[in-house]
């Protein structure tokens, strides 16, 4: 329904020798979170902004739920696509609540309904409505502002969200927390999301699929994080994926899904907290110098299990 199709989309800025986006074709399924990842200036933002017509493509077609976006009135289109810009862009003269109520207001919701919605969304992104709704953006920290930016984009419950480095300007710890909360949200909301970042690890962590982009937004590989890590299409993707890709793949495997032996209660093994991954299991083993780790839920995971997880491609 709210799937996105880019068909041979090209954007040539006036006065530039080469197109910024060159013949991109890409399918994004409804409810899927696709991450565009690539170096600065490769055309991620340009590609994304063509979806909500902030930038008009020079050629090619973009279909949203089967409808060509060029046939939809731009403002109407944008009111139904959540948009988080690279620089957050909260309006400084409006309170947090007013910022979030903006799109519902444009859509003609009544005041009480949009006010209630704003509170609900603040709650959802982990900010206490009573404490934050009447504050102004400058009275919030950078990380809190980014949460509000996400809440504002979610306000009218759009089926599609475009997010341009929404967690760009935060420290690693805050960033990780925002990512975790965002994943939890998305598991619940199942929006169709285009997420732009130049942080490959973030892409691996968040994406259902990742589009690794080269210059002019050409797609070097478009696949799941697991497969991009396991079988990078070429040297460019491999260099982007960086080193220790096997370890990064382990991070994608939840510890709960690991096969294990029933746990003997009194054995004093190091225990992994709930929500950890196979990588955390390995980390505990190395830290404690043990070949077995207890995983929440009452099982013991062996070192051999971890070693065998990545199947038969260890020759690479």
């Amino acid at each position, binding site marked *: 329904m709210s799937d996105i199709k880019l068909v041979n989309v090209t954007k040539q800025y006036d006065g530039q020798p080469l197109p910024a986006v060159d013949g991109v074709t890409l399918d994004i399924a409804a409810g899927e979170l696709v991450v565009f990842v690539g170096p600065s200036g490769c055309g991620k933002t340009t590609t994304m*902004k063509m979806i*909500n017509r*902030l930038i008009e493509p020079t050629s090619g077609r973009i279909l949203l739920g089967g409808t060509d976006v060029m046939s939809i009135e*731009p*403002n*109407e*289109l*944008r*009111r*139904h696509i959540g*948009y988080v*810009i*690279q*620089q*957050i*862009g*909260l*309006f*400084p*003269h*409006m*309170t947090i609540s007013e910022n979030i109520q*903006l*799109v519902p207001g*444009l859509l003609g919701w009544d005041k009480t309904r949009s006010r209630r919605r704003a509170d609900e969304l603040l709650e959802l992104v982990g900010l206490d409505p009573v404490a934050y709704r009447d504050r*102004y*953006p*400058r009275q919030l920290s950078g990380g809190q502002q980014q949460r509000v930016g996400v809440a*504002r984009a979610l306000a009218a419950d759009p089926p599609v969200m*475009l997010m341009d480095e929404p967690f760009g300007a935060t420290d690693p710890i805050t960033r990780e927390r925002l990512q975790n909360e965002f994943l939890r949200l998305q598991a619940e909301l199942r929006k169709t999301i285009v997420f732009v970042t130049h942080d490959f690890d973030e892409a691996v962590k968040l994406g259902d699929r990742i589009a690794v982009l080269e210059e002019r937004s050409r797609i070097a590989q478009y696949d799941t994080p697991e497969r991009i890590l396991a079988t990078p299409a070429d040297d460019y993707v491999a260099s982007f994926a960086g080193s220790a890709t096997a370890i990064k793949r382990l991070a994608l495997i939840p510890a709960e899904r690991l096969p294990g032996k029933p746990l003997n209660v009194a054995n004093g093994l190091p225990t992994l907290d709930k929500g950890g991954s196979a990588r955390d299991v390995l980390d505990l083993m190395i830290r404690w110098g043990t070949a077995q780790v207890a995983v929440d839920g009452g099982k013991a995971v062996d070192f051999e299990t971890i070693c065998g997880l990545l199947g038969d491609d260890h020759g690479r």
Partner: protein
Amino acid sequence: MAVDTLSGAFGGATRKSRSYNLGTPLVLAAALVLLYLWLSTQQLDSMEARVLSAASIRDATLAHLTLTAISTSIVVVIAIPIGVLLTRPFARWLTPWVMAVANVGQAAPALGVLVLLSILFGIGTKIAIVTLVFHATLPVLRNTIAGIQQVDSALLEAGRGMGMSRRQILRRLELPLAVPVVMAGLRTTIVICVGIATVATFINAGGLGDIVVAGIKLQRTSILVTGGVLTAVIALGLDWLAGLAEKYVRPQGI
């Protein structure tokens, strides 16, 4: 462009409290009291007594305030819409031309313009107001343009990306965020009006210029000083009031 007024406006933006600055009115009141005390120690002759009578001073002050108020209002009504217009994409090419005219307006000698206009159109209050408006339009015009242009383009893009129309972006983002800069221009305009309104006397349009010119013609220091001090007090007092108003019309949060 407008660097002085801009920095003034942003200096103000960091002042968060809405406390009144009572220093200025106190100093102005003290100046008036001193003037009064000094005048009461002077032996005033009949001519001085006539010019410095309560009625004469009241009439001149009222006329001066009226000239200033009317001209400032006209400037606001003219300059803000034109400034807004000149920031719209379709009219942007006009900006240098209009600014050139406004610059000439501010640079031309007020008395010259006044005399020229009165030769062409006769004397009186109307022509005085035309001269004032001609001279005092630039600050508001320039700051309206600068105020809108200084709005962070990321905010406009966010607005556009959320589906706000051009008009909604102007009304709900650009104009409110430009208010502090426009207000800084308005204060400059007011002070210019108060100053230039003193030449209105030459075409019989009244104001404190009557008193100053009488002081010069009669060679009476007491009259001259009174006219000068009153003009200065009005200029500074109105500027203070406008500053106060600015605190109230400035949107919260910025």
